[in-house]
């Protein structure tokens, strides 16, 4: 998400949006965690209905599905869930075919 929130249009109240927030900064994290994890913030994303009009990238509040009001930085409007099925696996296609053949025609 780029900065420069001033030029961005106001997102209307009631829009389903995603907030991002830092829960613990690097120096505040749990003791004893691996160095690669300790050096980055512990952060979160959460979604809800925008409580008041706000611009992308600016502070905002949402009312969540559990009816709580949460504050954070407005990250996305109608956020898409990026999970998909990925690319086909030639390896799995091949072994499936082989095993079907083996079942019909035992060695």
């Amino acid at each position, binding site marked *: 998400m780029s900065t420069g929130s001033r030029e961005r249009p106001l997102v209307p109240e009631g829009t389903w949006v995603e907030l991002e927030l830092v*829960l*613990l900064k690097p120096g*505040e*994290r*749990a003791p004893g*965690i*691996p160095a*690669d*994890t300790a050096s*980055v*913030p*512990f*952060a*979160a*994303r*959460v*979604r*809800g209905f925008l409580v008041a009009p706000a611009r992308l990238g600016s502070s905002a509040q949402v009312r*969540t*599905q*559990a*009816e*709580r009001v949460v504050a954070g930085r407005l990250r996305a409007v109608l956020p898409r*869930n*990026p*999970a*998909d*099925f*990925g*690319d*086909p*696996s030639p*390896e*799995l296609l*091949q*072994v*499936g075919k*082989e*095993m*079907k053949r*083996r*079942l019909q025609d*035992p*060695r």
Partner: protein
Amino acid sequence: MSARAYAEVMARRGAIMQHALGLDYAQFERDGGVAFDYEGLVGSPGYDLDAVRRVQAAFKVGNTPLWELPRLSRLVRQTAKPGRGARILIKDEAANAAGSFKARRASLAVEHAADLHYEGVVAATSGNYGAAVASQAAMRGLRAIILQEVFDSKWRGQPEILEKTRVCEAYGAEVWQVTVGPELFYWHLITLEQTGFFNASLYTPYGILGIETLGVEIAEQCRAQFGRDPDAILVTHSGGGNVTGTARGLHRAGSHPEIIGVSVDLTGLHMASDHDFNRKSFTTGHTGFAYPFTVNPDRVDVPRNAARGLRYLDRYVSITQGEVFFATQLLAELEGLERGPAGNTSLAAALSIARELPEDALVVVQETEYTGAGKHPTAQLTMARELGIEVRIGDPRDGKPGKRIVIPDDIDQLRAVDIDLNGLRRSYLGRIADRRPDRPLSDEETTFLADDTGVSRDQLATLWDEVARRPRARARA
């Protein structure tokens, strides 16, 4: 320090938990801090088995089909010695509300929260349990908050857990997606404190009692459909609840098959590492969770864990990521069941172990789960390749977690690898010995530790001597 500082919040954990569980765990503790009244804890819910079945039936859980997998069994027999190659059965737990056996655990936990008049429930889980809690809460009009470890620090999401976010939101839950780290528990405590909601932990007695029906159903269905008791039950093993509840249920039904735990081998990957997080293709049922939970069951979000794998495991094996993907493909292409990853871990081991057993033996894979975007082998293999992990066909023994996934080219290459249960028992005991050097075990502690590690008192005495004699720093290794 602020009230939200990490150390401050952790210092309040006892008080937060007691309020969020409605159960005083102190009543079960015994002198010395080692032993506690396990049966008293697991027996504390006021439900007998019939009551559990009634609750589950009322909330769309249980009585799932037990299917035979004849084509996979036949394929295994082709590579077995004459007379060997057991009948493989699978318990289709995907048929539960929310698509997994976790509905059994959630049904009782959420029922209990409703009985105690909590307004909502919170669960810190990246797995199917979140969906199950959200679904059970939806049926009762309770609010639900699910906390999930989803992203690395570059906001790259684990595909399977992204799907879990979607499904929990589909059931109307508030979902927090956090970045890698054990501070998920910290945020869990803050959320419980802020809301006063019930902690629908996986590890309460309710979470275990709810699974006992799964074991009972397997015994009853094997008798009704196949005229005999099961010989071996394969259980995907992680936090220990699945093993514990299933074994207890089977015992309740008077059935005593071999209980075989199965975990995906993720040796070498650190579960709290930002770098390693997305380099594993399995989010649960793997050694990265199972080892620490098995040797230290109380490292959980409740004072005492009701899920205690070592009590019930007769045998414990690992299987590689590539072998599980292979089993997933075969379940779809040979048996017409497209299912998610969790149950396929124990299925992969079943395809190896059935080879050793007589033809008339019954081997039960005790769960399936729903599949979908992100939860599919193709999603995981795509992610693995993007992160530079090599994927190829060959001998699964050549795989290396985080570096190389090798998919077997034939069923006879599948090999469940035995994990030394005594090694895990020594690690468990070593932790206790470290805390109390030179103090012998009391009679009560000896009995407790023998039960808790699944051995006789004599065997326990031998293991304890081995551990106590070691240099202290090495006992934990």
